[in-house]
C-alpha cells in the first residue's frame, strides 16, 4: 500500500505562529491607535480587515471551485495533488468566520456614520434610498451567512468524500459519481454567490453609488487565478519536503498554464470593464476610475496591471518557464501579491479617499492571515494520506504528460 504522510515540520509551525502573532500585534496596535483616532483612521482599521478577510476567503473558496470544475470535466491532471485544494477548501470556514465577524462589525457596529458602507444609513441620499431594498442590513447579513455557510459545507464535504473514496473497495465508483453530482450542485451555488451577489455586497457596495455588471466576474477571475497560484505554492512546498513523489514537472506545467491563461483572462475582464467605462465616459461610472487611475491610487492602479498582466504574460509565455520550479514559485507569489493589490485598489479608495496607507498595520494584518493559512492548511494536510490511492484517475495522473 502506498502511503505518503506529511508531518507539519516545526519550522513551518513556528513560521505560522510568528506570522499569526505579528497579525495579532498589528490588530491590537490598530485597536489601540487607529480606532480611537480620526475618522479616516477608523476607516483604515476596518477596511484593511475587510480587504484581507474577503481576499483570503475568496482565494480559498477558489479551491472548492477548482475541485468542482475538475470533477465535472473529468480532469485527471489534478488528482496527483488534489489533497492540496481539498485541504484549502476544508478550511474555508475559518476565513469565512473571520470575514463574517469583520463584515458584521462594520455593518452593525459602526453607528450613525458608516465610514465604509454608506448605504447602512442613507441620510436622505435618494440613490441609496432607492437601492435600500437590496442594500440593507438584513439582506446583507442573510446573503453573507448563506454564502459562507454553503461554501464551508461544500469545502468540508468534498474533502471527506475524497477521503472516504480511499477506504472504498478498489475501482468502486459510487462515491466518485456522488462527487460529480455534488460538484454540479456547488457550481450552481457558486454561480449565484461568487459570480453575482457576494462581490456586490461585500466589495462593490463600498462605492455604493457606482455599479458595473461585470464586477463579480472580474472579482471571480482575480480569486481564481490566485487560487491556482496558492495550490501551486503548497504543492511545491510538499514536494520539497519529499512528499508527493508522483508530482512531476508535467503536473507543474499544468498549473503554470492555468496561471498564465487566467492571468490573461483576468486582464481581459479588467480591460472590458475599464475600456467600456472609459469609452462611454458617463460621469456616474468614470468616477470609480478617476480616483484610482489619476488620483492618489495611480501607483497601485498601474502596479496592478504590471504584476497581474505584464509579468505573467512575459514570464509564463515560454514553455520552459512553466516547467521550472523557481519561475513558477516566483510567479505564483507575484500573482497572489498582485491580486492582493487588486483587492487593495478595489476596497481602499472609497472609504479612505486620499488617506491611503501601506504601512505597519496593512502589512501586519496580511502576515496574520498568512499565518492562519499556514497553520490551518498544514494541519489538515497532515491528517490524511497525501495520495488519493483509490481515485479512479490516479493511474492516469501517474503517467500524465502535460
Amino acid at each position, binding site marked *: *500500500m*502506498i502511503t505518503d504522510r506529511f508531518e507539519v515540520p516545526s519550522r513551518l509551525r513556528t513560521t505560522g505562529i510568528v506570522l499569526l502573532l505579528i497579525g495579532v500585534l498589528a490588530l491590537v496596535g490598530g485597536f489601540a491607535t487607529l480606532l480611537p483616532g480620526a475618522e479616516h483612521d477608523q476607516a483604515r482599521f476596518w477596511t484593511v480587515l475587510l480587504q484581507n478577510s474577503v481576499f483570503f476567503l475568496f482565494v480559498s473558496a477558489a479551491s472548492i471551485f477548482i475541485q468542482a470544475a475538475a470533477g*465535472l*470535466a*473529468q480532469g*485527471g491532471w489534478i488528482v496527483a495533488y488534489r489533497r492540496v485544494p481539498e485541504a484549502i477548501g476544508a478550511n474555508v470556514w475559518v476565513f469565512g468566520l473571520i470575514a463574517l465577524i469583520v463584515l458584521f462589525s462594520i455593518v452593525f457596529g459602526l453607528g450613525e456614520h458608516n465610514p465604509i458602507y454608506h448605504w447602512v444609513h442613507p441620510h436622505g441620499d*435618494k*440613490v441609496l434610498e*432607492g*437601492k435600500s431594498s*437590496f442594500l440593507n442590513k438584513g439582506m446583507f447579513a442573510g446573503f453573507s451567512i448563506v454564502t459562507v455557510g454553503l461554501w464551508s459545507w461544500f469545502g468540508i464535504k468534498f474533502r471527506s468524500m475524497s477521503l472516504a473514496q480511499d477506504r472504498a473497495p*478498489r*475501482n468502486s*465508483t459510487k462515491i*466518485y459519481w456522488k462527487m460529480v453530482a455534488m460538484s*454540479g450542485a456547488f457550481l*450552481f451555488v457558486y*454561480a*449565484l454567490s461568487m*459570480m*453575482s451577489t457576494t462581490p*456586490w455586497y461585500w466589495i462593490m457596495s463600498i462605492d455604493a453609488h457606482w*455599479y*458595473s*455588471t*461585470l*464586477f*463579480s*466576474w472580474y472579482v471571480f477571475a482575480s480569486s481564481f487565478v490566485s487560487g491556482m497560484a496558492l495550490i501551486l505554492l503548497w504543492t511545491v512546498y510538499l514536494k520539497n519536503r519529499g512528499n508527493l513523489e508522483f508530482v512531476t514537472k508535467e503536473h507543474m506545467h499544468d498549473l503554470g*498554464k492555468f496561471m498564465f491563461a487566467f492571468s*490573461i483572462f483576468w486582464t*481581459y*475582464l479588467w480591460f*472590458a*470593464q475599464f475600456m*467600456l*467605462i472609459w*469609452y*462611454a465616459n*458617463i460621469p*456616474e461610472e468614470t468616477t470609480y476610475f478617476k480616483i484610482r487611475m489619476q488620483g492618489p491610487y495611480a501607483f497601485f492602479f498601474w502596479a496592478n496591471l504590471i504584476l497581474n498582466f505584464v509579468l505573467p504574460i512575459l514570464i509564463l509565455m515560454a514553455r520552459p518557464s512553466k516547467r521550472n520550479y523557481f519561475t513558477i514559485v516566483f510567479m505564483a507569489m507575484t500573482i497572489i501579491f498582485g491580486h492582493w493589490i487588486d483587492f487593495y485598489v478595489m476596497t481602499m479608495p472609497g472609504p479612505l479617499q486620499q488617506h491611503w496607507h501601506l504601512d505597519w498595520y496593512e502589512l501586519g494584518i496580511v502576515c496574520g492571515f498568512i499565518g492562519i493559512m499556514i497553520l490551518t492548511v498544514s494541519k489538515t494536510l497532515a491528517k490524511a494520506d497525501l*495520495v488519493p*490511492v483509490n481515485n*479512479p*484517475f*490516479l*493511474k*492516469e495522473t*501517474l*503517467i500524465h*504528460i502535460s
Partner: protein
Amino acid sequence: MHLKYESFVREPLINGNKTYAQVTEDICRPIEQKPTRLWYMGFIFSLLLLGFGAFSVTWEVYWGIGTWGINRTVGWGWDITNFVWWVGIGHAGTLISAILLLFRQGWRTGVNRAAEAMTIFAVMCAGQFPIFHMGRVWNAFYVLPLPNTRGALWPNFNSALLWDVFAISTYFTVSLLFWYSGLVPDFATIRDRAKTKLRKKLYGVASFGWTGTAKNWQRFEALSLVLAGLSTPLVLSVHTIVSFDFATSVIPGWHATIFPPYFVAGAVFSGFAMVNTLLVLVRKIFRLEDYITIGHIEAMNKVIVLTGSIVGVAYLTELFMAWYSQVVYEQEAFKWRVLGPYWWSYWAMMACNVVSPQFFWFKKLRRNIVFTFLLSIVVNIGMWFERFVIIVTSLYRDYLPSSWTYYSPTWTEMGFYIGTFGLFFTCFFLFAKYFPVVAIAEIKFTLKTSGDNYKREMQALDEKTVEEFIHVAEHAH
C-alpha cells in the same frame, strides 16, 4: 514507448473494434461513393434557398435599403441580429479545435472537423449582413484602410464597427488555416486511395504533396499548436468586439460592462447547439455512430448547460443592475424590454436560453438523441431572440417619446436571412460530400487510448494496485 492507458471511468470515444485501416475505410467511404438521393434533394433545396436569398438581396440593392423594415429609430433590425447570430454560431468550431486541444480533451477529435467547417460557413454568412446593410454596397471597400484617391477619407479607427471588420476577417483567416492544415493529411489519404485520375489529381493538389514522413508530422504538430495558440485569444476577441459594437455606446440596454464575456459565453452556447444539430444528422446519414458517439453528444450537452447557465446569470445581472443603478433611463429601458410590446421576444429568449438547457442536468436527457436535436434547435431560436431583444428592444423606445416606434421585417429582410441558410447548407452539403467529415488522422491518435477494443485490454491495468501499475508503466515499451 509511453504506456497507453486511460481511466475506466471514461467511456470509449471510438466504438466497434476499429483498427487503423477500418477508420480510414469508414470515413472515406461516403466520399468515394456516389451521393445518395437524399443528398441531392438537400443540396438542391439549399441552392433554392440561396437563390431566393440572392434575389432578395438584389432587390434590396436595386431599390435601396428602404425596402427593409428598419427606420430612423430602429436602425438595426434583422440584419444585425442575423449577423451576430451567425458569428456566434461560428464560435464552437474554434473553441473545439483550439481550446479543447490545449485542454487535451480527447473527444474533440470526433467532432472538430465538422465544427470547424461549420464555423467557416457561419462566418461567411455573417459577413453578408453588415456589407448589405451599408446600402450602397459598391462602396463597401471604404471600411478597409486602403491608401486611396479620396483625399482624407479614412475609416474611423475609434469606431467599434471598424474593429469588427478586422476581428471578423482575422478570425475567418485563422479558422480557415486551422481547418485546412488539419485536412492536409486526410486529403493525402484520399489521394492515396483514389481510383480515378481526376480524384487523384485534385486531392493531390489539395494535400500539398503530403507524404506522411516523420518530418511532415513534426511540422504538422508544430503548426497545430501555433494555430491553437493564435485561435484561443481569437475565440474570445471576436465576440468581444461584436459586443463592443453595442457596449461602447451610451444606449441603455447596450452599455453594460458584462457584455464582452457574456457575448462570448452566448456564442459558444449557440455554436455548440448548431454543432449538435448538424452532427446528430451527419452521424446518422454517414453511419458514423462509432466515431461520433453518444458520449460526444453528452459532452457537448454539458457545455450547453454550462454556457446556458452563464448566459442566464448575465441576463439576471443585467436586469438587476438596471434597477440597482437607480438611473431612470436604464430602468425604463429594461421595463420596456421585459413588459413592453416586444415582451414575447424577451420571454422567448428567457425560456429558450435559460430554462430549456437546465434539462441537461439530467443524464438521461443529455444522452437522448431526439431530445438533444430538438433542444439544439430551441437554443438557436433562443439565441436569435437574444440578439433581437438586445438590438430592437433597446432602440425602439428612444429618449424622445415622439420617436417611439415598432419594427417588423419586410420580405426582403427575411429573404436575405433565408438565403444565408441556403449558403450555409450548400457549403455544408459540399463539405460533407467531398471532405472527410471526421478527422481521420486525429481519430487515429486517440484510437489506442480511447477505442473500445483497446480499452477492454486496459481492464487488466485497472485491476492492478498502484505499485504494480507503476511497475508496468516503467517497463512499458
